[in-house]
């Protein structure tokens, strides 16, 4: 019994070793498709397009983007997860992949359907208010929320989005009851906050930054433990007594059965692209700060994010909202 098992493993290994170099030698043999599960013009789209543009010399083939939109990202993620695992279809795996499965019943994919290539950026969550808002600090906000249950409105990017969970997790920790107003993405949330139609915008830092730098909106807190990934002159949530390190992320993934040698080439390509000065300045101009992790490190980090959002989702459903 034991010998047959060993033989089987050996045979398997032999097969694998024999097969993988061949697959790796073939990769990349044609242009690589970068699947973007969200529409043209959004944050995910910007990062994905920039990657496709700058990765060409580092991966040796053309990369082209395809926006496969719809169903809170389900359409694109499902397509990317079910693609042939040969490395020629890679997907922008973003926060929705670890938030929507917890909040949308029947959401067809999770982060487990992908092998993570690399993490490109991970902006923390930010709470911002209109520049004329009476809430100057997080304390003001919480005090008002406690005195007036269900009076505050939090604008979020919709039911499957991480921003909804971030807002809810915060409200729960702060012990306040608020109304969540879902929008079609973070752009409309920031617009509605600037138009004074909602009190607080829950977004990530990259999305809010352009609005904060020219003073249209004011940040109350940043959900990060590290001061240098926060915002200048804005207290982090940790400093205000909320141990929350949560936000959004933009990563790249390949189908889960992609062979290791192919993964190695993709990871290497991403590592070189992420070190590319032009790529970095290009992203920074659009408000995205690079924050990289590769391969297993990135995968472990995303798994941890999934647990974080899972917990937040349990809190939200416990509240019955």
């Amino acid at each position, binding site marked *: 019994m034991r010998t047959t098992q060993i033989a089987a493993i050996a045979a398997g290994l032999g097969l694998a070793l024999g097969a993988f170099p061949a697959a790796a030698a073939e990769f990349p043999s044609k242009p690589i498709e970068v699947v973007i599960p969200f529409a*043209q013009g959004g944050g995910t789209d910007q990062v994905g397009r920039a990657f496709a543009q700058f990765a060409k010399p580092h991966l040796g083939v053309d990369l082209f983007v395809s926006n496969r939109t719809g*169903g809170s990202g*389900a*359409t694109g993620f499902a397509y990317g997860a079910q693609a042939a695992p040969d490395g020629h279809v890679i997907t922008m795996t973003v926060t929705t992949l670890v938030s929507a499965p917890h909040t949308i019943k029947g959401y067809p994919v999770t982060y487990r359907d992908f092998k993570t290539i690399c993490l490109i950026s991970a902006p923390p969550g930010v709470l911002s208010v209109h520049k004329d808002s009476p809430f100057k600090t997080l304390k003001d906000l919480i005090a008002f929320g406690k005195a007036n249950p269900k009076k505050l409105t939090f604008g979020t990017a919709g*039911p*499957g989005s991480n921003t909804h969970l971030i807002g809810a997790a915060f409200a729960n920790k702060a012990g306040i009851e608020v109304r969540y107003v*879902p929008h079609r993405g973070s752009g409309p949330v920031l617009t509605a906050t600037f138009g004074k139609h909602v009190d607080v915008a829950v977004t990530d830092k990259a999305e809010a930054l*352009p609005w904060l*730098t020219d003073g249209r909106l004011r940040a109350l807190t940043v959900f990060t433990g590290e001061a240098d990934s926060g915002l200048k002159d804005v207290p982090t949530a940790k400093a205000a007594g909320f141990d929350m390190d949560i936000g959004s992320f933009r990563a790249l993934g390949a189908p889960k059965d992609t062979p290791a040698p192919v993964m190695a080439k993709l990871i290497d390509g991403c590592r070189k692209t992420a070190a590319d000065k032009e790529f970095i300045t290009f992203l920074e101009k659009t408000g995205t700060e690079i924050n990289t992790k590769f391969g297993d490190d990135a995968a472990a980090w995303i798994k941890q994010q999934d647990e974080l959002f899972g917990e937040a989702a349990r809190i939200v459903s416990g509240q019955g909202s």
Partner: protein
Amino acid sequence: MFDLILAGFGPFLDWNMLLLVFGSVAAGIVAGAIPGISATMGVALIAPLTFTMPPLAGIMSLVGVYCGAVSGGSISAILLGIPGTPGAVATTLDGYAMARRGEAGLALGVATISSLIGGIISALALMLLSYPIADFALAFGPQEYLALAVFALTAMAALSGGSFLRGMLAGLIGLFLAGIGIDETYGVSRFHFDQTYLMGGISFIPAIIGLFALPETLQGIERIGPVPRRAIQISRILPSARLARRLLPAQLRCGVIGVIVGAVPGTGSDIAAIIGYSQGRNLSRHPERFGTGEPEGVACPEAANNGATGGSLIPLLTLGIPGGAVAAIMLGTFMTHGLQPGPLLMQNNAEIVYQIFAGTMIACIAVGILGLLGARLFARVLAVPEAVLTVAVLVLCVLGAFSMRNDTTDVAIMVIAGLLGYAMVKLDIPRAPLVIGLILGPMVESELSRTLIVTSDDRLNIFTPISTVIWLLTAAPLIVPLVARVFRRLRQA
């Protein structure tokens, strides 16, 4: 201020710059005329090319493609009965009817001149009234959007082409289809039958292509026979002075409607065209002629959807708010050039803002010039033998449906929508109301739930000053005739 406006035209005295604007407008017209390439896609396709250009050149390429595409959508709508972009759905009704009557040239001419007028109104608004309009647009919250969406929905009646009940039936089918997929408020997935595709909802570009294009090709096949089709003479292109005078008030009115609808974040040229058409019909002395090839039926939506192009730039340039997908792409382009649209742009880079204002005006004029010069050429499409044209359109339909999201399921949706459309044509059920339902359904639903959330402490807040006015406008066509009748009775008694 006026010297700033004039100085804005400076860079366009350069031949290269002028050539770039005309070139991108021409590219936009072609993109818009191809069903499946919407204005948004055209702009998204061209955007990466602009990153290496100087800022003004890059942004003007996008503006040019945008203006061209919105106008180009009417070409296929008029000639083939297939709206090239969602903004041209309303144009299809009367435009195609005119073409079938042998007035294809005139329809193209009216569409182009209306586009020109709408575009110029929007460029003037951009130059002179940006700030007040932007403040007005910013005042739009859930309550105002809800009122606007319902107001636009009433256009179903105007686009029913005579049979109100059949129009309503089609509209309700559209609203039902719009409900498929994950809802935006609570994330509940409806009628998806465990199909990932359906969770994303029915994407309306393939549906529009199918609904309009496929029935035309099927009818084309029915017409193919031993009898050769008589060659279509290209009629005059420029409207007579009398017709031009008659159309002008409608064009001006719809241009203004377009600017406002375009400036409000989240609504764009498609909704502007729908509202423009229905207002044109409601205010017409001959509403019964709409749908049978009335030139106003072409002028109104075309003036409105081009008015929306400049309109959508207003919140982007003054407040940094991307009101729609096209503006979002432009925002990205600004930022890659190190410019942040918003209040500070006007302070720090007023020069480029005024150059963009001037450029928008020039792009609109380019739309007019190229449209009128090209009309005769475009109309030659009708000289292509039906047997060839039908097949070519069919190929375009499949490509257009597929290219939207590179999804074969979209092709299947296109075919299903096409068979539905064919059945509707045979049963004499208008198709435009279905499209309105499909476009406005998600908006009405999500704005209604947002309104209910933000007004949960005091329901009377549903009636804000702006929303009350829109609700009254919505109710006016129902109430005014009744009141008028009562008055007439009273006077007789």
